[in-house]
Each structure stands twice: as C-alpha cells, then as structure tokens.
C-alpha cells in the first residue's frame, strides 16, 4: 500500500510540473504585450515599455519561466498586474469557499449517487425507472438555471436560505457557513448526481452478477450482509473512480455558481481577473485548479486501492 501511494506520487509530481508549464505558457500566447493589454488602447509605447520593465516582462520568456517556476516552488506566484497583491495571497484567500463548495458537492453526489444506483440495480422495476428519470433530469438542467430556480423558490418565495454571499466557517460558525452553501451545492450537484447514479447502477448490476454473491449466499451469509458488505464494496470502486473524473466538471460548475451566488472564491477571482486582463492571477488560478484536480485524483487512487487489493498491484 505504501509503495502504491509512493508510485502514484511519483506520477503526480511530473504531472504538476507539466501543468505548471502549461499554465505559464498559456499566458505567453497573448498576442502583443500583456502590458499593452492592461493599459488599454490609449497607452503610449513608452508607458507600455515602462510597465513591461516594472513587471519583468522584458526578459526572455525562458528566463521569466525559470523565475516563475522557482518562485512557484516557494509558493510565490508573482504579483497581480492590477492590484499589486501577491498572487498566492489572493488565491489563498479565495480558496475556502471554492473548496467548501467542491468538497461538499462531491461528497453529496457520491453518497446520494451510490444510494440511488444501488436502489435502482437491486430493486429494479419502478425504483429503477424513477432513478433513471431523476438522474436524466438532473443531467439535463443547466446548473445556472437550476441555481436561479433554487434562489427563486428557497430564498425569495420561501426565505429559508440566503440568496447570495458566504460565511466563514472559522469566524461565523457551522450554521451560517452551511446555510450559505446549501443552494450552490444543490445546484452544482444535480448534473454530477445523474452521472454518478448511472455509473453506480451499472457497477451494482455488474457486482450483483458475480459468482462470489452466490458463493457467499450458499454459505448462509444473510442477503443484507452480502449486499451491504460485499456488493457495496465491490461496486464502490468504479464509482469512486468516476467521481474523480467528474471532479473536473465540478470545478467548472464552481466557477459559474460562485458568480451567481457571489461567493468570494477562486472562480469569481478568475472571472474578475479575466475581465481585467490580470494575467498573473489567471496563470496562478489555472495552476491552483489543476493542483486541486491532481490532488483529488491522488485521493481517489488511494481510496480505490484501499477498497480493492487488486488495484494496489497495478
């Protein structure tokens, strides 16, 4: 197991490097100078040159890259071109709402998706049909439209939850934190819930047809224990894997929902920086998001390996 984790880490490190390189050079593709883009069309060449010098953009790209990478390794991603704030500070401050949203939504979809998929596969018939309908509907509703609907029903008509904003868990406590996240998490989860429920349904259908189910029942092991101990464990493996894959889309949804619910997270920061041509923040943001994906996939790898011993030898 330890060796397996080390092996996965060994794959993750070069992955981080490549992703960092991509996020750096993405911004290098800007036609013309970032300084010109920041200053706008009215700026004179002298002003542009001056800004370039002060931002260090006049150095060759490779030098800039090495500098940036060295800085990044020490947690320094440069300064925002617009506000002058260190990029890593700006990103770190925005981390909590984004992580809260993404993690809560992932846990919700995984838990509920497993239950729905299991019910559909085991009970079949009407339960199966109902799960397929709910899942299909969830997958068809754009999250931004669902968000508006939820706000209208559960914040405006029935003022149960705040329509926008965020409350710090550390300073304002669990209740306010959670109540600010209920609507965005629900809106974010609908699409993935359908995906996971369908995957879980297929995984349970597969596990229920395996010979060990018969072996265990033949030993007198009660049906419920076969189901909740053995079938559940086997079926969770592919479902957890898929949860890792859908995390990319969860992050995409986070950006949109942070905008709608006015959450001070990474997504909103990215959108603002995109609008103001704040390239250094965009650069750092791409890196942060990618790191989150790599980290989640690492967690998923470890989780599947601890569920299924066959994964460990791969």
């Amino acid at each position, binding site marked *: 197991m330890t060796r397996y984790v080390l092996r996965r880490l060994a*794959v993750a490190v*070069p*992955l981080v490097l490549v*992703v960092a390189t*991509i996020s750096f050079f*993405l*911004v290098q*593709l800007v*036609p013309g100078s970032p300084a010109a883009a920041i200053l706008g069309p009215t700026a004179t060449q002298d002003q542009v040159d001056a800004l370039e010098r002060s931002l260090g953009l006049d150095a060759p790209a490779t030098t800039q890259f090495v500098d940036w990478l060295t800085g990044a390794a020490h947690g320094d991603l440069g300064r925002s071109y617009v506000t002058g704030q260190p990029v890593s500070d700006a990103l770190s401050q925005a981390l909590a709402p984004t992580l809260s949203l993404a993690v809560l939504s992932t846990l919700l979809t995984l838990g509920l998706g497993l239950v729905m998929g299991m019910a559909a*596969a*085991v009970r*079949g018939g009407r339960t199966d049909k109902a799960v397929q309908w709910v899942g*299909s*509907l969830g997958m*068809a*509703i*754009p*999250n*931004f*439209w669902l*968000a*508006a*609907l939820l706000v*209208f029903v559960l914040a405006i008509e029935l003022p149960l939850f705040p329509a926008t904003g965020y409350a710090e868990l550390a300073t304002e406590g669990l209740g306010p934190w959670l109540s600010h996240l209920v609507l965005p998490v629900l809106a974010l989860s609908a699409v993935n819930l359908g995906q996971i429920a369908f995957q879980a349904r*297929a995984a349970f259908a597969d596990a*229920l*047809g395996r*010979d*060990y*189910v*018969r*072996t*265990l*029942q*033949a*030993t*007198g*092991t009660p*049906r419920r224990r*076969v189901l909740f101990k*053995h*079938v559940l*464990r086997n079926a969770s*493996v592919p479902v957890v894997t898929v949860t890792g894959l859908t995390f*990319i889309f969860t*992050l*995409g949804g986070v950006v*949109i929902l942070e905008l*709608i619910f006015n959450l001070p997270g990474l997504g909103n920061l990215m*959108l603002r920086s*995109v609008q103001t041509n704040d*390239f250094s923040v*965009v650069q750092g943001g*791409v890196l942060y*998001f*990618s790191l*989150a*994906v790599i980290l989640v996939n690492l967690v998923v790898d470890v989780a599947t390996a601890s569920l*299924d011993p*066959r994964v460990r030898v791969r």
Partner: protein
Amino acid sequence: MTTTVPTPVGQEVGAATPAARAARPVGATARAVRQTLRRPAVLIALGWLVLVVVTSLLAGPLSPFDPLAQDLGSRLQGPTAAHLLGTDDLGRDLLSRILHGGGVLLLAAVVPVLVSYLLGVPAGLLVGYVGGKADAVADFVVNVLFAIPALVVVLAVSVVTDNNLPIMTVVFGVVVSGGIFRLVRASTQASRDLLYVDAARVSGVTRTTILARHILPNVLGPLIVQGFLLYSGAFLFLTSLSFLGLGFDPQEPSWGQLVFDATAKLDTDPWLMVPIGVVLIATVAALNYVGNALLATLPSSRRARLLTPTRRPVLPVADAHGTGSTAPAPLPAGPGGDEPRLVVEGLVVSFRGEDGRWQPVVDGVSFAVERGRTLCLVGESGCGKTMTALATLGLLPEGGAAAGSVRLGGQELIGLDEKAMARVRGSRIALVSQEPMVALDPCFSVRSQLGDVVRLHRGGSRADVRTRTLDLLRLVGIPNAERVGRSFPHQLSGGMAQRVCIALALAGEPDVLVADEPTTALDPTIQAEILDLLRSLQDSLGLALVLVTHDLGVVADIGDTAAVMYAGQVVELAPVEELLAAPRHPYSRGLLDAMPEDAERGVPLRTVPGVVPLPKDWPTHCRFAARCELATDACRTGPVPIEVVGPDHQSRCIRTAETARGVHPVATGGQS
C-alpha cells in the same frame, strides 16, 4: 446507462459463458438501432431536436420581431397575443430572441466533437494497436488532459485570444479528447488479438489497412454513441460560457445570456426564466435521451443478478409440472425405509421469458442421495444439471423459479422464504462452484471471508474464530494456512482457491455438499487432487455429495449413483458400475463411447452427433430422438416415461429392453 438485456432462457444463466457474450449475430446491432429509433419516446426526442435545428436555421423568417428591437413601452410583459412568450426588460420579444439564440451554440458545439475525434481516434487506434512505450507516453498526456479543468482553461484562453470563440471551442475539444482516446484504445486493445485480425496480420496486410478495415468498424458503434453524448456535453458547456458572457457576441442573443438576463430580474419577473429554461432543458434532455437509447443498443455483457430476491418468484400451478409430459419417476427406496438425506422429486425449474411465459429448463427431475454417498449429475452443457444443483439450495439466478419437491433430512425446502432458506444454507447444505477464481470476493482476504462464515455459524471469540478458520484451511489440505489466510483471492492459484471455496462450504458443517463442476476450470493434475480431497472429506465427515459433471471419468472415479440428464430430464438413473458396464439409454452409451480414456489408437473417437436442443425447441416426444441412432417412428409419437429396468436402475427409452440384451445396436448404426 445500461438497460436490461434479457438472458436467453435455458442457457447457463448467470454462469457468464464467454461465448454468449462474444457472439452477436450480424445485423443484430442494426436491428436494435432500428427498433430503438421507432420507440415513441425516442421519436419525440428526435422530433424536438429537428424542430430546434430547423427553427434556428429559419430564425429570421420565423421570428415575429427583430430580436434586438427595443420597445420600452412594452417592457417585461408576460405572454400576450403580440409577444407569445413575453418581453424582456428592454421590451425585446422573447420568442424572437430564443429563435435567434440557439443557432451559433448548436453549431459551435460540433467543433469540440470534431476536434476530439480527429485527435482521439487515430491516436487511440495506433496506441491501442502498438502498445508498449507509446502507451505509457499517451497515458501521461491523457493524465495531463484529465488534470486540466476545462472551464478554467477556456477562461484563460478567452483572455489570451480576446474572446475568440472558434479557438475556445478547439481548446475545449483538445481537453476532452482524452475520453475519446481511452475509448478507442480500449476497443482496439480488445479487438487487436481477435482471430481474424491475427489472420490479416499473418497474411501481410499493412498496419493501416488492418486498423481501418478490421479494427475501426468494431469501435464505430461506441464512438457514434459517445459522439452524441459528447455533443450534449459540449452544448451545455458552451451555454455556460454564453451565460458567463464569454465567447459570444454580447450584441446578439444567445441562450446562456438569456438566462443571465433573466436571473437579474428573478425577484420581480420570474417568468423570464421559464421559456428559455424549458427550451434548454428539453434540448439537453433530448440529446441525452437519444444518446442513452443508442448506448443501450450496443452489445453489452449484462449479467443476471445472482443475489436472491427477498421474495422468490413462485411458479404458477399451471407451470409447476414443467411440460408435464411424464409422471415423476418412482424413487428407489432407501435402506431400512428411512428417507435419504437429500430427496429431489419432480423438480421443475423455469425461467420467465420476455413474453411472460414460464419456460422450463429442468423438467421433472427426481433423485435421492444417502449420507456418505455420491450422486453424479452427468450430461452435456445445457441439459439443466447446474440449474438442478442450484435449485436444491434455492440459489437460482434472477428470473428463475422452482417447483416440485426438495427434501433435506425430511424438511421441504421448496417454498421456504429467503430468511428460512438462508438458515438452511451453509449449515445443512452447501455449494462448491465451478470457477474458483471468481467465486471469492476479490476485496476481502481469505481469512476475513472464511472467518465471517465461521462466526456466522459458530460464534465465539476472535481467537476461537481464528483457530477454527486455520483448522478449516488445514482440513482442506492447505499446508501454509497462515499465509494463505492472509492472501487475497487474486493471489491464489486455481486449485488453492478451490480448496478455500471448499473450506467456506464446510464452515457450517453441512450434511449435503453440492459441487457444480468443481474441477472443470482446473489443471488435470489439480483436478485429481481436488477429487481426492472431496472423497476423503466425504469419508471423514459422512457428507452426502451431489456432484455435477460432464466428465464420465469423474463419475467413474468418485460416483456411487449417476443421474444422466438430457434436455432437462433424467434419462438414466443407475448405480455407477452398472451404468459404465451396461448403460440402458442410448445417450448414456453415446457419452461412454465418447470418453477419450477408452479410445483406441487409430480409430476415430466416437461422438454423439448433433447438439442438445434449447428448451424452447424440446419436442413433445423423446427429446433425444433427433440424435439417436436407434430412433424409430415409435420414438416420435409421444412422451417417453422413465421405466424401472432393474433394482435402482431406471431408463427413459422405449427400446431399453433391446439395449439390455447386450446387443450393441449403436455399433450397427454407423456414424452419421
């Protein structure tokens, strides 16, 4: 999404026959697709998609108003005669804006699909075919793609390219191409080693031709379906961009932007949300629905559920006697008049077909096993041996039901509910199944699985359970019990796994052990070891053993009584020595003649020509007549009852008297 693919009745349901999965008649997929496209729900979904495309194409002529024309006098009206869907906060007609707002989105969503196909298909084919280093490199690239959150990257691209939609869609296509690549690579790897591909390779066909002519067609079905779902995802993604105000001209209406405008007026004018919401949801739902319906037409390997239902199906009275063609055979009386340990009488196993009718696969089977004795169920595949064995434990796969009588130590098991049956299983009757390598749960160690069963039956402290677990492993002849106990099933050899399975079956100290082809999946040397083990366990524990086999060598080795099965019926029931020396049914004789052990050098091995008929093709007369060299017209007139032909010897043949006279009629027949 998968849907229920009915398993053919009478096949070894749930036994995961590879042949059933691989073989798919030519044209079956095309037929499935045609049927799918005729379903009303699919037609409605397709109709909606056509409507959306056509109205978007004809948005100009169809729109009652200019989508950009502001009319501040009629702001935020609900639906009216002039404005069928109402107006927005600048008085613009919503219907016209919706008609104009979909075209670019629908068109732009094609780009990512094309890009990911152009990248993913050739790369997947090549890497899947070549494998090796290329595979490792490609894996890394795909991992990078999977680590990039698409929306965030496209956001960055939008800054860099000053909101250039074509470039943004291409980048999105690149990011999602990893999925297509993996799909194509997996299918290519699967078809790479197919025989006809090998044949093409050997005959010198170039790699490109092999990939294009022989492998690509196999991948095409899943690809088309995946394309549909990918398009739906791309469409939703682009709508999100348009919602964020990215990539689309803010002057022109687009669907995401319409939602954005509506959210701004949510508290005062919620109606604005409704029309655009309906259009968006219906379009994505229709895309997903058609995609999933097509996905369901692809050949899949859905297995029948093996978990017993809480309420087992009961055969209707009318079906409880199977075909009811003959009366159940009288059972040989046990010694001293006591009932034998296990008695099966008039057992019928039926599966419910697609049309709701019950199709028998086991048709009135009767036999009995004494303590310390072995009864072998013999016959070719598809004769109902396994279903007979499973029915005694109440472990029929999904869709099966049993009737008749199964008595264990005098207790009737047919009709017991699942809870009562679970108490019988393991403690009084147990099972050893065919494929030991898949019979154990791969996620738990041997120690854990065996320990659970020991605890279930005996309870006791952890130390007791542990001791008993190790004892059981030693009992089944595992020398290094400690180490094997710590192992996981995938670390065991077939023979070792089968020993563990036998230990599992014995954990509850049953009286009767049902072994379904326990040695078939094993190497010949291991087979003998496992048979020896079963025999010695039977001697020491006094087990009544029911052994399913197609191998008369095994019968000769271990059996006391043999029940030869053909097409769901017992055709001959006899003491093993008698059966081997003087079989009274032509099928039994055919099986004996086909034993390779007795083959003479230089003389072709005799076989029984033809195959076992499927249950739906069972004739009403003698079921073996079509393959029988002795068959006469009399054999084809009506059901053949089983007759007592000697003490403990029964045969289901009207010419059984002739076979008894020592005539070897088969020899005069000649091979057909």
